Every structure is written in structure tokens, then in C-alpha cells.
């Protein structure tokens, strides 16, 4: 199994509180890995470490055989690690289209051009528009991002992430607050990427049915430590996971999407 991303004893503490505790994992190339764990287990923090928002107290991160522990968030994005945010994190006063175009522009490496008019780059705008269609947000292309409903902002997040075309996609609860009607569509988008574009995807979610449906492998974080890992089926059966995370909820018969 080829690991595209690997952590070694990754640790971070915030003033004594150890949020991620010596986590060593392999993220297999072109596979779908999910991370679950109770609230405050350190999932988002783990993402922040991977994407460079935070730097670890200890341990290292290796991406394609290269130690990137000291790289900045910007550099990691450029290397191919892209992420979405759990708390919606967009450019509030720019239009939806501009939000995505900025991501497309970065991907196309049109970064420091001060001379040309932005409209000169027609293809970028088209691509941004296509991405909006992909997440069903084309109607809102000209609205300011701040005016979107919560679920719509989440879709925008996904479109911006897709625009970066990174090799790894780190998705932090992409469907939180998204309506039941839309969730399957987003899942389809994610599936489509996984299958047709050969990306590596890492997903944080609390929706177990989604995890079951999509994952090749599941990692369980608990109090910052790696509690378990395995296939979805193994994980659901794991008793520790049951008591720490699922709380019997998942036993129930009733299941809605």
C-alpha cells in the first residue's frame, strides 16, 4: 500500500492540553480515508496540522517522501494538499463566482500578474462557473458570499476546494448543516472525484452512514490519540468505538440518508 501522506508521532499541545497525541498514520494514495471521533477528539486539529494552519509541537509529516513539517500552509497547498474548513471560511464580500475564481486562479498559477485584466483569463472564469454548477450553486454566482444560507456556504467551500485540484482533499464535515435533499448530491460529487479523478480523499464526518458508504479505511481519534483503524465494518463493530463515539446510536434500525 502506497502512502501519499504519512505522519510520525504527530503531537500538538495547547498550553498543556494535548489535542493531538502522537498520531502515526499512513494515508494511502488514491483511497478514501475517513476520520471519526467524538467532539474535541482532535480531528480538525489534525487537519490543521496536515494543511499547515498549525505547526506541531512534535513529530513530522511526510508527503510523497518529502518532509513537509516546516512548510507553510501556502506551500502545502501548492504541493497538492487542499482542504475545506469546518467553520465556513469564505470571502464574505466577494461574489460567489469570485470566491471560486480566486481558487481557480491560484491553481492556474496566475498569481502575481499585475498587468493583465482579470477578464483576460476567460478560461478561468468558465472553469469557476462549471465548478459552481457541479455543486448546484450556479444560481447564486453573483450573490455576495455573505448572503448565502448556511448550506449554500458549505457548497461554496467544496467548490473552492475542488478548484484547487489538489491531489489530496481534506474535507472537514463538508455536509454539516446541509439539507437532506442536498447531501446525496454532494456525496455523488465526492464519489465522482474519487473515481474519475483519482484523488486521495480524507474526510471528517459525524454522519456514520456516509462514512460507511464511502470509506476504504476509517481512523478513529479519541482524546487526541489514534484509538483504532480499519475498514468501516470493523470499526462499527469495535466496542471501544461503540462506547466512545457511537453510543449505541448506530444500532438502530431506522436509517435515513
Amino acid at each position, binding site marked *: 500500500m502506497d502512502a501519499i501522506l504519512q505522519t510520525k508521532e504527530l503531537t500538538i499541545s495547547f498550553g498543556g492540553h494535548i489535542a493531538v497525541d502522537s498520531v502515526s498514520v499512513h494515508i494511502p494514495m488514491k483511497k478514501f480515508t475517513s476520520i471519526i471521533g467524538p467532539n474535541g477528539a482532535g480531528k480538525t486539529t489534525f487537519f490543521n496540522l496536515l494543511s499547515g494552519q498549525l505547526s506541531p509541537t512534535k513529530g513530522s509529516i511526510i508527503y510523497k517522501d518529502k518532509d513537509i513539517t516546516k512548510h507553510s500552509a501556502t506551500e502545502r497547498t501548492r504541493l497538492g494538499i487542499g482542504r475545506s474548513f469546518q467553520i465556513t471560511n469564505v470571502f464574505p464580500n466577494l461574489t460567489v463566482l469570485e470566491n471560486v475564481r480566486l481558487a481557480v486562479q491560484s491553481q492556474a498559477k496566475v*498569481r502575481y500578474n499585475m498587468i493583465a485584466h482579470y477578464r483576460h483569463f476567460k478560461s478561468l472564469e468558465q472553469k469557476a462557473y462549471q465548478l459552481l454548477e457541479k455543486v448546484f450553486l450556479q444560481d447564486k454566482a453573483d450573490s455576495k458570499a455573505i448572503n448565502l444560507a448556511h448550506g449554500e456556504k458549505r457548497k461554496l467551500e467544496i467548490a473552492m476546494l475542488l478548484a484547487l485540484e489538489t491531489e489530496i482533499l481534506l474535507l472537514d464535515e463538508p455536509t454539516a448543516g446541509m439539507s437532506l435533499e442536498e447531501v446525496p448530491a454532494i456525496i455523488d460529487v465526492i464519489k465522482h472525484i474519487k473515481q474519475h479523478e483519482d484523488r486521495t480523499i480524507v474526510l471528517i464526518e459525524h454522519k456514520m452512514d456516509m462514512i460507511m458508504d464511502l470509506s476504504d479505511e476509517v481512523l478513529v481519534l479519541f482524546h487526541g490519540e489514534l484509538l483504532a483503524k480499519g475498514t468501516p465494518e470493523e470499526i462499527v463493530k469495535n466496542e471501544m468505538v461503540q462506547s466512545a463515539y457511537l453510543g449505541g446510536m448506530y444500532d438502530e434500525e431506522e436509517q435515513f440518508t
Partner: protein
Amino acid sequence: MNVRSIDKSTWIYLAIALLLFIVPFIVTGRSMQFIIIQIFIFGIFAMSYDLLLGFTGIISFGHVMFFGIGAYSTAVTLDRFDATLPSLLLGVLIALVIAAIVSFIVGVLTLRLKSHFYAMLTLALAGLFLVAAEKWRSVTGGNDGFTFRLPEIIRDSQSQYFLCLISLILIFFGLRRLTNSPFGKVLMSIRENEQRTESLGYKVLHYKVIASVVSGVIASFAGVLYIISLRFVNTSVFATDVTIDVLLMTIIGGVGTLIGPIIGAGLVEFAHHWLSGLSEVHWIFERWIILYGTVYILVVIFFPLGIVGTIQAKFFGRTVTKGIKDNSKTKAG
């Protein structure tokens, strides 16, 4: 907004520029020309400020330091050498180079600070320049300042007018292109959400420093023009009042627009001229500054986004931003 409407606005701007070329043949009074020249100069200065405030979302209280650098570099060069075109050009070159270096250093030093802290640090640095100008009396003449001679060709008012007008037009269109370039869009995204810009793969500090250098160099050039129009320099070119003036012009015109600062400069200069003139009409207007202050207040009430900003938002339904992030929202998250 489509390509066509952009073209239209470019034409309008060009037409206005053309009209301005005719003005000196109609307005021949040197004093009125001097006022218009000041508007051009402060228009340039305010645009450079808006690149920081309106486009990148940085409030600086020390922008005057670049203005002063431009002013002193030119004045001292002209004073030390003879009053010829080459020494003027040398002065301008020195002004721009020093401003570029200083704005680069200041940018690297300060831009990692957040909002108020950044603003105050720039205030401090500009304050240090003021003290330096005061203390380095042998070169600057201190607070009393000194006068100097100008090369023949730019000595008369007409040629100063054209020099400033051409500079204004070139800088306006230059900055307009810059803000509409992919680079400019990244600046705006920094204004909106710095951290997110970073995670899209942009090196935010680079952008901010570049913006600060461009802005500093232009401000320095405004200082050069100012000193040419005044033929006299003293420490007031480093005074905080000047930063405040330019800040006001930018805000009154509308942050985040380029024509705004120019209109702001015009409005402030004319309001000033007109209101102070009132004091001769009737003694009741001796305290015209009260009216002047009231103008600011009324602008905020009736044109909350600045003159241009508000008009754009009202009549063209264009989205104009407040310029500065509303921290309340980001903090709460």
C-alpha cells in the same frame, strides 16, 4: 458587469481627463490652478493610500512617511545641486528608491501585526521620521524648513499643472489595471479573509509587501509633486495631519474605488477653499472650521460608503465593500 460597460467607463474617464487638459486655458488664475494642482497631487496620494485601505484592508496611520521621503529627497537634491532637470530627475529617482526600500522594510516589519496594532506601529514609524527630520537640522532645516529653486521648465504654473495631471492619469489607469488584475483580486481576498487566502496557495505576506511598496512609491511620488508645487519644504510633510487628511479624502470619496480618492481630494480641497472663503463674507463664518467638521459628519450620514461608493451602490447596484473587515463576525466564529 460586462466587458462593454467597462469600456464605457474607461471612455468616460478618458473624456474627463481630456477636459482637464483644457482647464488651464480657461482657469488662468495661478491660485486656482494651484488648488487644482493640489487636488491632483492629493488625488495621487489618496489613491496610493486606498490601495492599502480599500483594496488590501490595511489601515495605516503612517502613510505620510513616504510622502515626506519623496518631498525631502527632491528638495534636498535640488537644494544641494543646481536647479536643472537632471538634478530634479536624480531627486525623483532618489525619492522613489528610498521609498521603495523603506516601504519594503516597514512592510516586512509591520505587516504581520493585526489591525490596530499595525496602524499604531506605522504611526510610530512615521513619528520617528518626523523626529529625524526635526533633528537632522543641517540637511532639513528642521521645522522652519528651507526654500529651493526649480528647473526652468517646471517653474511656471501651467507646466506644473500638466505634469501633475499626466501623472494623475497615468497612475490612475495604472492602478486601475493593477486592481483589476489577478494580483489585485488576491489583494481583495486578503482584505476579506487573510487566512483563507493563504490556504488557497497565495503567499499573503508577499502580496501585502508588494502592495505596501507600490503604495509607498506612489505616495513618495506625490510628495515629489507636492514639493515641486510648493518650492518649500519643512517638517510638516511628515506630520500626522497629512496622513489624516489623506485618510479623510480616501474615505469621503469611497474606499475600494480609485476614482473615489480623487473625488475625495477634490471635495476636501474645495470645501476647504470655499468654507474658509466664507469668513470674508460674514463674521459669523469666522469659525468656518465648524462647518468643515460638519461636512465630514454629514458625509458619513448621507454617504456611508463615501461619495463614489454610495452612488455606485445606490444607482448601479454594485457591491461595494466596507473596506475593513468586520471583526465582530470573524471573532465570533
